[in-house]
């Protein structure tokens, strides 16, 4: 029996793996110590658990345990990395390069730094969502201290050419930071092979708990430092003060270990389901897959169904299926997704998009149900869409003078 509702929003967050929860439980109760308590066994136990988790997390990304700084999540990691580099390397320069499809935690941090004297270049992406390496090369300046480009995009799932990007940064003497939230735990990420200097990621996108993340900070070739953004006890090699979230960190470690051991099998199974879903929905007339299909996360599909509006579309099945739309139809924000617009999609296509994010517990039965529900709703809404009628009659919708609000 199919259990409803179906969760297909794994880019937003993931359910916790029961194995992770099991690992965490003792650290709430009997092993409750503060990992910074050096004088008794409660503290030692906690510290041991944190050290073990640090190894588990480091191993997932090919790093050394000493290079892992625990944080509260990736937003903190993004802030700490970008602001921390800006402060630490101020004598070297003030120029930062990023791109327009980054997460708000990166974009808004850059905007904040502009007020403090940073110069920021926001690279446009190509229509397939990938950064143009020539444009990046051309944007590099002697004062460039940081290139910050996400590993994989949260809305369309495209995976950036990280190796090439890091090589360009290195050639010009800049550091390379990447927001790895969507990629780490889903696809192989190796900080050495990828040339990453700093990377933020988080537990709750890989079946771990919310409220705990990590910042990878390279220790050699080059040795990277970031200025702490929170003053206090000097935890985490002085880069991030604050009592460690021991149960969260233990869970993060376990989640990272499972992600590493199960990745190949998970990817094979999930990508088959994703392809099944996508191939079925592509059969609908005037539907378009967004983002480069060859460089994409295995569990994500972002599709625009032209002539129907995303929020209206979701209403057709959102009591049964949980997913996200690129459309935001509220008076506060009539703007559709800035990521889809950055790909050069017209507002109509951006308003018509759905993001499907599959996960470890997604079943074929759920995908079959979703294919039917989405197809039925698209067809039903097109029957009541004036734009669809015009399209069918051959009216050029772009030629109409629309009254803008």
């Amino acid at each position, binding site marked *: 029996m199919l259990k409803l509702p179906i969760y297909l929003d794994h880019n937003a967050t993931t359910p916790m793996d029961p194995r992770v929860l099991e690992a965490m439980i003792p650290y709430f109760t009997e092993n409750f110590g503060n990992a910074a308590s050096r004088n008794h066994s409660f503290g030692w136990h906690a510290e041991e658990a944190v050290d073990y988790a640090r190894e588990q997390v480091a191993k997932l990304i090919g790093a050394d345990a000493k290079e892992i700084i625990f944080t509260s999540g990736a937003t903190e990691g993004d802030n700490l990395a970008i602001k921390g580099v800006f402060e630490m390397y101020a004598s070297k320069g003030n120029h930062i390069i990023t791109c327009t499809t980054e997460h708000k935690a990166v974009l808004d941090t850059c905007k904040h730094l502009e007020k403090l004297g940073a110069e920021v270049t926001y690279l446009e992406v190509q229509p397939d969502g990938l950064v143009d390496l020539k444009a990046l090369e051309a944007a590099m300046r002697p004062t460039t201290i940081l290139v910050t480009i996400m590993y994989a995009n949260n809305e369309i799932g495209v995976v950036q050419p990280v190796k090439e990007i890091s090589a360009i940064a290195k050639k010009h003497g800049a550091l390379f930071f990447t927001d790895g939230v969507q990629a780490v735990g889903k696809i192989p990420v190796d900080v050495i092979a990828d040339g990453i200097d700093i990377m933020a990621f988080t537990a709750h996108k890989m079946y771990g708990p919310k409220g705990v993340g990590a910042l990878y900070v390279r220790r050699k070739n080059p040795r990277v430092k970031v200025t702490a953004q929170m003053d206090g006890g000097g935890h985490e090699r002085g880069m991030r003060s604050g009592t460690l979230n021991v149960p969260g960190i233990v869970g993060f470690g376990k989640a990272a270990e499972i992600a590493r051991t199960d990745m190949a099998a998970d990817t094979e199974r999930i990508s088959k389901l994703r392809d099944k879903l996508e191939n079925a929905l592509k059969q609908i007339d005037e539907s378009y897959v967004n983002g480069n299909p060859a460089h994409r996360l295995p569990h994500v599909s972002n599709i625009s169904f032209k*002539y*129907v*509006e*995303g*929020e*209206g579309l979701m*209403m*057709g099945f959102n009591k049964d299926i949980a997913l996200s739309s690129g*459309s*935001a*139809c*509220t*008076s*506060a924000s*009539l703007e*559709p997704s800035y990521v889809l617009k950055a790909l050069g999609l*017209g*507002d*109509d296509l951006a*308003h018509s998009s759905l993001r499907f994010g599959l996960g470890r517990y997604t079943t074929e039965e759920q995908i079959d149900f979703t294919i039917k529900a989405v197809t039925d709703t698209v067809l039903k809404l097109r*029957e*009541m*869409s*004036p*734009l*669809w*009628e015009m399209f069918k009659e051959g009216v050029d*919708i772009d030629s*109409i003078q*629309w*009254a*803008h*609000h």
Partner: protein
Amino acid sequence: MAYSDKVIDHYSNPKNVGTLDKASKSVGTGLVGAPECGDVMRLQIQVDEATGIITDAKFKTFGCGSAIASSSLATEWLKGKSVDEAVKIDNMDLVEELNLPPVKIHCSVLAEDAIKSAINDYRVKNGLEELVFEERIH
């Protein structure tokens, strides 16, 4: 955001979806909104020329559930009303009936605009002056 039962009902069972002959002199058509804003409504009325009564109304809407519900309800209200009565339909009546939250009020405004635009189309076709409505900030 949770939708009210009435919005869900209109969305699931929309009333009067369809198309009237826009070339007919007795039909008024209003097309409002814009694809870029995420909502476009087309509302049509069929008027009995002798009595001035709206005998039929149809809509097609590209938009969210509240936009679909607002236009569906508007067509229900239009049928049987005289053109003069129809002009008086206020967006806040739609808001109240459908229990729209503040962020969705623009959907009802759009429906009111569609009604007025359809009525003006009918008037112009029949040699009457266009009614002038106050500019509204959406």
